[in-house]
């Protein structure tokens, strides 16, 4: 039927088709092997990549803990504010929405510029912030006009509110948005990328940041290729930060701030048994609320340029020569060393000669014969020169150290300074010079190298007032209050003598703070004034008569200080007031301290005493 040539080519064709089938089976095997490789061998890798593709983990902001004062008054709370955001894809004409928005709430050029920038860079479904910090009223107004504002959403936003404003800003602190520097410091913390995340900056907001901040919620969402959230896969709600109750009494805090008025300085009031700080004021102050939002440059400059340094918490950060307040320490040292006895009188001629140098008393022609109590009462300088000369620097330093000079307190606030308790060894290493008797004499009246913070002075006075017990100061109200119980090792009689001297300063005619004495149903205050020079008085000036304080420029005037405790019979509270460049302590700081102490005693009458001495 068929010719041989036909058989021949069919034979070839069949052979070639078989070869083709072989090639195809091989190719199919290659495909299946490749499939096996991608899906089984490398499957895990691709599964992870797919998972990474489709999921986005977003953190949700936790609510920060509330800060209360000791009576439950809110010092820092969370306040709901509203912000308007625009989602462009929801409207055909977002420009119309923007124009209508501006008819209701005007926008400034800076904002318009920012919005234009965001519109350019963000995808259509990403919300663009139009305006934040809207009041409830404004938000309601926008809601009412919703039909003209297609694509506009009102979002709730939590901000921090400080009801006391400037009155407690240093101690409570503030929270603020992150700077680029914060981001650099902790680049792996995803919380920092969250819009609206704020961290504590100073005061308690900073030192208790970890307890206040809470735990962020985690929201795992499924996203599509364009980055849009499709649904929530998992959600862990954020947990609120811990509420903190402070030992601060907001009423006193307000009172003290108001009483300080225009003066720059610090006030510390504390419970001498528990170490609880009732008041910590530094003036001038600033409104904490200003810092929770980006600060306008003008406001910032005003704060920075103020020579009275509003940002500084002078109570813990200000270092002052304690001046005559330090005489309490020297008196105690003299008594402890046995050089001074209650009856022993020392003569003050108005100056003390050391080699060819004269050390002057503040009273030109001297105090004549004085007991230790009288020396404190009049704040005689020569008396303490004499004591210091006799007992030596080491004894003074030892007592000062026991009372906490040169040592940080337990408040744990950032920015706290240690002050400086100088020593021969310190002088040798820092000034390459030997300690001289002149240094000892300067130290004895709280001048020279010695510096201390108001909080340290307050601790020293409180430890004298409580009978020489070691005090741990605190700002945080704790249910199990640790009452001071460990003695610092002073003789009770010696402590009493120093306290008597402080009593006389206020309550005996001629005392440096006699003007500010008060008697609230038998409750009196005992204290010690101090005026410390911030400039050297030259020999020439001393001869021609020391220039009156109010004739000097503000920054050359003496610092006025007053340290006190009350009531004398049953001491409970200690106070330190520092008025920078206030002139004399008796004229500037003492009246303020007296007023504040009276307020303290009014608020805490003895029958409702927070802690009675056993």
């Amino acid at each position, binding site marked *: *039927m068929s010719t041989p040539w036909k058989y021949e080519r069919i034979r070839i064709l069949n052979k070639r088709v078989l*070869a083709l089938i072989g090639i195809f089976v091989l190719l*199919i095997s290659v495909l299946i092997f490749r499939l096996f490789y*991608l899906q089984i061998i490398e499957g895990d890798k691709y599964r992870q990549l797919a998972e990474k593709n489709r999921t986005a983990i977003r953190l949700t902001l936790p609510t920060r803990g509330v800060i209360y004062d000791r009576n439950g008054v809110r010092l820092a709370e969370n306040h709901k504010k509203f912000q308007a955001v625009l989602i462009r894809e929801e409207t055909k004409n977002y420009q119309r929405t923007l124009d209508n928005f501006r008819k209701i709430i005007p926008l400034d050029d800076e904002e318009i510029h920012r919005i234009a920038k965001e519109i350019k860079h963000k995808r259509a479904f990403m919300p663009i912030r139009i305006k934040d910090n809207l009041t409830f009223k404004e938000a309601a107004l926008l809601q009412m006009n919703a039909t003209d504002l297609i694509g506009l959403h009102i979002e709730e936003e939590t901000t921090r509110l400080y009801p006391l404003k400037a009155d407690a800003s240093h101690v409570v602190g503030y929270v603020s948005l992150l700077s680029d520097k914060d981001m650099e410091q902790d680049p792996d913390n995803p919380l920092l990328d969250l819009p609206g995340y704020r961290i504590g900056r100073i005061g308690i907001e900073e030192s208790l940041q970890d307890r206040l901040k809470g735990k962020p919620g985690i929201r795992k969402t499924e996203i599509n290729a364009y980055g849009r959230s499709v649904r929530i896969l998992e959600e862990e709600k954020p947990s609120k930060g811990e509420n903190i109750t402070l030992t601060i009494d907001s009423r006193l805090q307000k009172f003290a701030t108001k009483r300080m008025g225009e003066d720059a300085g610090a006030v510390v009031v504390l419970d001498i048994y528990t170490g609880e700080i009732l008041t910590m004021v530094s003036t001038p102050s600033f409104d904490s609320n200003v810092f929770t939002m980006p600060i306008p440059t003008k406001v910032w400059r005003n704060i920075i340029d103020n020579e009275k340094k509003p940002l500084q918490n002078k109570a813990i950060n200000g270092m002052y020569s304690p001046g005559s307040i330090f005489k309490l320490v020297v008196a105690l040292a003299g008594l402890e060393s046995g050089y001074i006895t209650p009856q022993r009188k020392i003569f003050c001629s108005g100056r003390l000669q050391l080699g060819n140098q004269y050390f002057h008393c503040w009273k030109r022609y001297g105090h004549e014969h004085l007991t230790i109590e009288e020396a404190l009462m009049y704040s005689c300088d020569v008396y303490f020169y004499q004591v210091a000369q006799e007992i030596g620097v080491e004894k003074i330093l030892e007592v000062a150290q026991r009372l906490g000079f040169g040592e940080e307190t337990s408040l744990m606030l950032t920015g706290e300074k240690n002050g400086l308790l100088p020593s021969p060894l310190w002088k040798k290493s820092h000034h390459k010079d030997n300690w001289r008797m002149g240094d000892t004499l300067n130290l004895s009246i709280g001048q020279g190298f010695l510096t201390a913070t108001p909080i340290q002075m307050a601790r020293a006075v409180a430890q004298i007032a409580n009978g020489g017990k070691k005090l741990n100061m605190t700002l945080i109200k704790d249910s199990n209050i640790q009452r001071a119980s460990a003695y610092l090792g002073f003789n009770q009689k010696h402590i009493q003598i120093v306290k008597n001297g402080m009593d006389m300063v206020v309550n005996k005619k001629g005392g440096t703070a006699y003007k500010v004495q008060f008697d609230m149903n038998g409750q009196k205050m005992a204290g010690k004034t101090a005026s410390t020079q911030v400039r050297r008085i030259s020999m020439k000036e001393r001869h021609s008569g020391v220039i009156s304080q109010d004739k000097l420029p503000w920054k050359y005037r003496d610092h006025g200080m007053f340290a006190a405790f009350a009531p004398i019979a049953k001491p409970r509270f200690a106070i330190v007031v520092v008025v920078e460049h206030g002139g004399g302590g008796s004229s500037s700081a003492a009246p303020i301290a007296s007023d504040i102490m009276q307020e303290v005693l009014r608020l805490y009458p003895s029958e409702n005493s927070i802690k009675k001495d056993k």
Partner: protein
Amino acid sequence: MSFFKERNCYLKNYNLSFIDKIKRFNYKYLFLICSVVFIGIGILYSAANGHWQPWASRQFLRFLLSLGVLIFVSFVNLRIWMKYAYWIYGIGILLLIGVALFGHVGMGAQRWLNLGFINLQPSEVMKIALILALSKYFHSSSLSDIHSIQYMIPPALMMILPVSLILMQPDLGTALMLVFATGAIFFVVGVQVWKFLIVLITVSGCIPILWSFLHDYQKQRVLTFLNPENDPLGAGYHIMQSKITLGSGGLFGKGFMESTQSRLNFLPEKQTDFIFTVLSEEFGFFGSASLICLYLIIILYGFYISFRCNSFFGKVLAIGLTVNFALYVFINIGMVMGLLPVVGVPLPLVSYGGTAMMTLFLGFGLIQSVYINRDMVIGRRGSIEDE
């Protein structure tokens, strides 16, 4: 008796009755093809996140239409196809020229011709037309003819003409498929292997020259194919995401409609060329390997039909069409797996698209026609010869 009946058919096969044709139709083969189509419709349903719209329902309508075409084509006498093979080829060429002159541009290439009622892609039609023409050409050639170079010039030109027109569109994938299909036909009809080697060596020598003729996007595709990780957000995005989609399926897959890559649109145009990855993601290695095996069975069935066919024209036609189908499979799957550059070849019977489905069914109709007329003896000029 039955032998006699067979014999009778053999002698008078040009007079096969309609009933005979229905009887001789290969239903197993049709069943295999339809199952792949149904798998495809299921994946399209899933790719649209569980909706018949916009792809699955329309694909089903196209399937019905194509099925009609298949049945019609298979019932046409094989000799008629041989008789008009060159005419069909000529029409294909004219359509390609029409595309070059009047075609409309889509996705950067001029491939479609609007005929008023249908958007025709002549390059798809050309695949069938060229195979038909070549089958006819070799029907009457002897081995010595085939071994002579002059004799091979016309079929070579038959291939080169449409390939050049398609390259101008430009459509590298289809052009390559035509070249490979022609090569396979040359191979089975008996062209010596050394000639293939010479061509292969010559072409590789010309690659630098060819490179300069490629469009930038084609160059980009080849470069991206060589190293997709280089440009993960740009041109490499497709290949990377394709591999992720595929690989993340694992052994058993994420389950029907549970794909994440596809549902969340990480793969653009997943319903067309990258549909295989959706199947792989949802049904894993088992699912995708099964589909590949199904394809292999269809391919082997095509070769089986060529073995069963008596006429040389039918044999070559069945082989050519089967190779064409196999090329779709290899190129598409190789492409989504990152074995080949992205050249825009759909997954046959599965990818969403009308012309490809129609052309494939036309091809299967021709194979069915070959099977129905398997015992027919066709003379040199297409007539019944009593040799």
